[in-house]
């Protein structure tokens, strides 16, 4: 089939659509009134939530009545926890800013690029979080423990083993399922888009 034939078919189809299509404005009006509120965008909501995470974190500390013991261990813990928390928070803000930039009325290529950048940012954020999380967790534990006693008793160390196990399995799954592959693919996609824009 030649494109001209396709064009002819298209004209006929277009004509049929305009002749045979009517809108029920009342139903559509009701849909516009009710649906947008129900159409939550979970990614936006979640990233918005992470912006307020410090407040939630502080409220959580008050609710759980977490006691800090100001000692050398506390400061060591703070020195480990605070930088990690700040870095991950900055990345959360970056991600939130990128999400807010997504606009469906952008040219197709621009939107594709924004989406690819967003995915890239998400992957970086996840990777960073996994790499730094052990330091943050250790730091937090050091901040709340009264004195540092080390026991080699297997039973008392079970919670710690479980935490490490959960963390390692989660890290393994995230990294194994092609986080690097996706990253490479995204970079390639962005390069391709940039090339197309310049051509």
């Amino acid at each position: 089939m030649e494109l001209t034939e396709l064009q002819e078919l298209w004209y006929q189809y277009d004509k049929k659509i305009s002749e045979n299509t009517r809108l029920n404005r009342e139903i559509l009006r009701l849909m516009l009134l009710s649906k947008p509120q129900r159409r939550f965008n979970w990614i936006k909501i979640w990233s918005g939530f992470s912006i307020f995470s410090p407040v939630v974190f502080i409220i959580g500390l008050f609710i759980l009545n977490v006691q800090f013991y100001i000692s050398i261990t506390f400061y060591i813990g703070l020195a480990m926890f605070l930088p990690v928390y700040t870095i991950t928070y900055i990345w959360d803000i970056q991600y939130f800013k990128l999400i807010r930039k997504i606009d469906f009325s952008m040219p197709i290529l621009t939107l594709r690029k924004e989406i690819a950048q967003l995915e890239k940012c998400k992957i970086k954020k996840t990777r960073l979080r996994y790499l730094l999380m052990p330091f943050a967790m250790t730091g937090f534990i050091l901040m709340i423990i009264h004195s540092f006693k080390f026991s080699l008793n297997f039973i008392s160390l079970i919670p710690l083993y479980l935490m490490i196990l959960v963390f390692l399995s989660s890290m393994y799954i995230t990294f194994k399922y092609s986080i690097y592959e996706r990253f490479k693919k995204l970079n390639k996609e962005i390069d391709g888009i940039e090339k197309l824009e310049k051509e």
Partner: protein
Amino acid sequence: MTDNQKRDQFLDILEKNIGILIKIAGGFSRTQEDKEDLINDITLELWKSFGSFRGESKISTWIYRVALNTSMNYKRKSEKGKLLFLDDLKQPENLSWIIQQEDQSDSEILYKCVDELNDLNKAIILLYLDSNSHEEISKITGISKTNVATRIARIKEQIRNMALTKI
């Protein structure tokens, strides 16, 4: 402008351009249910961005952009491992606000021809078939005018080859 006036203005625009939504959604969906769901998605995306539409581009350019971007993301939604932008918890809805007597067989042949093209080429050819100029296609897609012309020439060839094997 009151909310009601704004809604009426939007409905007028939609009424005049509903064909764009039907044609684009048809090109990016495989089943009738998907198509209806996609038209609903596009309509709601248009409504969401209507407030920020400043009239810097033609209304049709804005509609094409939103329709194509939504359609491309709608496809992403069902692909594993991609970002979800639209609410993935919603149920497919009945498109009761469009009254249409459409003969499916006509559009089936049309869409069969463009179905194997990649998303971007599909968008370009749908815009081309809808009589948009190269300049307009360039504004909607973000690709340069020269590149649009080159791509159209390549797509023509691709369609010819596909037709030989399929139709």
